[in-house]
């Protein structure tokens, strides 16, 4: 069994030994302020249960051996009920159950009320991915392959409460960070919240890479997973939680708040950050939605509208825009009506970036070079514009 090795940890209570800790928790006790408390309750129940189990099974095996049937021997007579005994074995478990209930409730209540000085992050879950928007408006641009797909890396500060305000864009999802022992369902029609305080630093901000990197190769950070079944790629809604010291966290947030690259790179980034990648491949492979590779300017067939072919590019770009903002209008033949509208979630530059990026995926080499040229021209114009408006507002570049 592979065990993630973490920095030496104190076993949080005398109920928890290191061996058990590895087996049950993969050695992650103490990753959040809740973890130790919850593990202690778990182990209390565990030891009580083990005790009962050993006694009961011990007696069973003992009786099965001692009173095994022997030819010619009848059973021995014994009472067929005993009120004292029966009351005892009703009352003792009842008391233990009462303790479990009260302790569990006591541990659960604080998880419901986030401290008022929490770092607030808005979480939007969708089929099938996560979008975390930090208080500065920053969104992650960092990805790591988990469960075979590029999964977002989300930074959180260490030693300070973090509160997630969550909603869903489609069906029910559920946010689960196992090492923090927190979980809460996410609904399309209301906001739910979840809070935690991370206790172990796992990452630092690397200026050069512009990314959060693990402190040690053994500890790659914690897992964010979706635990309410939500369709095809429910099992690939993973994310990485990177816990960083305050300064690193702020630096990471600042870095993620800006994007300076050219249009086609912006489009490529959005393909993952906005979750398009969940349904649209860029290498021609089959997913829930149509691939973006080699389809630029191709004619289309629809299930709910007459087919179209595109004479000029403006017409085609309008169709693309419409497909992103009002996807239900024209459903591509052979695909389900499953894409949600991105109305109000993309700035003009982002929309343009997506289109230019899609154009670079055309099978026609002329399109590809035209797209690159468009991208470069826009870069130039932007740089020129920036130096004009002295100390210019970077706001235009900020991702919404």
């Amino acid at each position, binding site marked *: 069994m592979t065990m993630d090795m973490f920095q030496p940890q104190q076993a949080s209570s005398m109920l928890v030994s290191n061996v058990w800790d590895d087996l049950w*928790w993969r050695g992650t006790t103490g990753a959040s302020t809740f973890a130790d408390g919850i593990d202690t309750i778990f182990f209390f129940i565990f030891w009580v249960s083990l005790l009962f189990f050993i006694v009961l*099974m011990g007696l069973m095996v003992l*009786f099965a051996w001692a009173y095994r049937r022997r030819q010619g021997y*009848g059973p*021995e007579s014994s009472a067929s009920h005993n009120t004292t005994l029966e009351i005892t074995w009703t009352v003792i*478990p009842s008391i233990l159950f009462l303790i479990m209930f009260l302790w569990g*409730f006591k541990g659960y209540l604080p998880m419901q009320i986030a401290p008022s000085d929490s770092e607030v992050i808005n979480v939007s879950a969708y089929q099938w991915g996560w979008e975390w928007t930090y208080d500065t408006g920053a969104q992650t641009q960092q990805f790591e392959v988990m469960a075979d797909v590029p999964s977002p890396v989300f930074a959180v500060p260490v030693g300070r409460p973090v509160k997630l305000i969550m909603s869903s864009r489609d069906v*029910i999802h559920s946010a689960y960070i196992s090492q923090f022992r927190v979980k809460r369902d996410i609904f399309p029609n209301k906001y739910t919240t979840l809070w935690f305080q991370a206790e172990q630093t796992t990452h630092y901000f690397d200026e050069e890479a512009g990314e959060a990197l693990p402190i040690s190769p053994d500890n790659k950070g914690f897992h964010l997973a979706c*635990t309410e079944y939500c369709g095809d790629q429910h099992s690939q809604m993973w994310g990485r939680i990177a816990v960083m010291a305050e300064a690193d966290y702020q630096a990471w947030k600042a870095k993620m708040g800006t994007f300076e690259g050219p249009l086609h790179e912006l489009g490529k980034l959005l393909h993952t950050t906005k979750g398009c990648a969940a349904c649209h491949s860029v290498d021609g492979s089959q997913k829930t939605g149509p691939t973006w590779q080699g389809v630029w300017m191709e004619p289309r067939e629809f299930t709910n509208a007459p087919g179209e072919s595109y004479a000029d590019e403006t017409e085609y770009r309008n169709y693309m825009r419409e497909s992103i903002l009002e996807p239900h209008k024209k459903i591509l033949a052979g695909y389900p009506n499953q894409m949600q509208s991105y109305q109000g979630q993309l700035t003009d530059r982002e929309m343009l970036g997506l289109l230019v990026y899609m154009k670079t995926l055309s099978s026609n080499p002329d399109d590809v070079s035209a797209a690159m040229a468009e991208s470069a021209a826009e870069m130039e114009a932007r740089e020129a514009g920036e130096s004009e408006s002295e100390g210019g507002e970077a706001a235009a570049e900020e991702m919404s």
Partner: protein
Amino acid sequence: MSHHDVSYLAPKETGWKTIWSWIFTVDHKKIGVMYLAAVLLAFLLGGIFAIALRLELWEPVKTLADGTVTGQVLDLGAGATANNWYNRAFTLHGTVMVFLFIIPSIPASLGNIFLPIMLGAKDVAFPKLNLFSWYVYVFGGLFALYAILAGGVETGWTFYTPYSSTTEWGSVTAMVLGAFILGFSSIFTGMNFIATVHKLRTPGMGWFDMPLFVWALYATSIIQVLATPVLGITLLFIVFERMFQVGVFDPALGGDPVLFQHFFWFYSHPAVYIMILPGFGVISEMIAVHCQKKLFGYKAIAFSSIAIAAISFLVWGHHMFTSETPAANAIFSALTFLVAIPTAIKVFNWIATMYKASIAINTPMLYVMAFLFCFTIGGLTGPPLATLAVDIHLHDTYFVVAHFHYVMMGGTVLAFIGALHHWWPKIFGKMYNEFWGMMGCTLVFVGFNVTFFTQFFLGTQGMPRRYATYIEEFTSLHQISTIGSLILALGLFVHLGNFILSLVSGPKAPRNPWGGLTFEWEADAPPVEHNFPKEPVIVHGPYDYGTVTPPHTNPGEFPLNDERPSA
């Protein structure tokens, strides 16, 4: 010969008449045997899906640098993604196992056959309704089969909205209608049993002269009758949602998806006791017979069944700790612990029954002990789930998957297989091979524990359920679990072979091979058409072992209390 002294299995004059005598039978035993065949078929189908699941989980899916994909077993193309195949597999596994297999399993097969006999009656109260409910079951099953063939369903057996009401994949409506129809079959069986228990006990048989299997079936029937309609309405709502977009559960239309969860669990929690109570019943029967010992605390066991049935209606919210408000959660958590107490009482009583007994080591008794082992683990992992703070972590992880397999497979199914061996000689008049029975039991026991104990660790380590693929950290535990499931499957096939062999060439069974005292052991093996040539009279209690010599046994075979060979 009149039908009073011919085995109910005896063929009629011609082949056609024999077939006719089965498909239009109102004999509870024949209906029971038909149910037995049907539920075992469903078990096999569900098991095939289960093995498919385990194979897919052998390795996480990985795309290598050169673009080849490894670790994908269930990718059969056909316009579906690889994940979709897995999602369909676990949904169909859960749905088939719950609605087609485990709910009807013990009550509709063994219950149908033995409830009237144990009461000394000629049949159930409404024999035609009994046959009708079998046909309703088959009809519902055909709906489910149609749904499986027409693209299947990938919503999970819980059909949570809005996913289930909006997904465009497969035939959710047909599957939901199938489950709705199966519900009626379950209601009819329940009504029939309640009326039978009330009105067809043999003269002189009071409530506390009834065998505990009858008590368990009685409690089960009450839940079936009272909870199933709510499932019915819930499923109807899904059908309405899908056909007319009524929007009651669809947030996009202003509805409330959590309301659906309340409706669903209001049925499905009591349903878990529909699944386990008959298991408790057969365990009580088997343990008394094979230990030749009066059951310890008969009344406590009988009343705890009723208590479980009653409290089970008040705890459904424990499936929703991550979707409901703290106040609701606190109440449901507390009530859940309450329902664990009567269960604990039963376990203690069973073990106490073995004290100073005369314990036979044979397949049914091995299964009793395997049941006590596995069910206790399953039961003991209920309290951590009922504990609020802990369930927040464990909810929708493999810990829950392990918990419910320990209670359903390790509880009900082990009890069912044990009881099949126990009553096999009576039902079919043939003995099975004891050696292969015990071999099968050993394989099942080992395989089962390897498969599912591992999953407790997966769960606490954070492996979510309903995952077609996973991150690499979990690979080794998943592989152990998969190996276990293959051993388990092997054990079950050993049983299947053993049973088939017994039917084909098993030796004729004596009337009372285990020395039982309940009425079914008075009857012929197999029983005659109306169970008893003459209405049996009650002369001793159902568990007066050690003081009454069992009928139709050889002298000295089952000595009474404190009898010793005269040396």
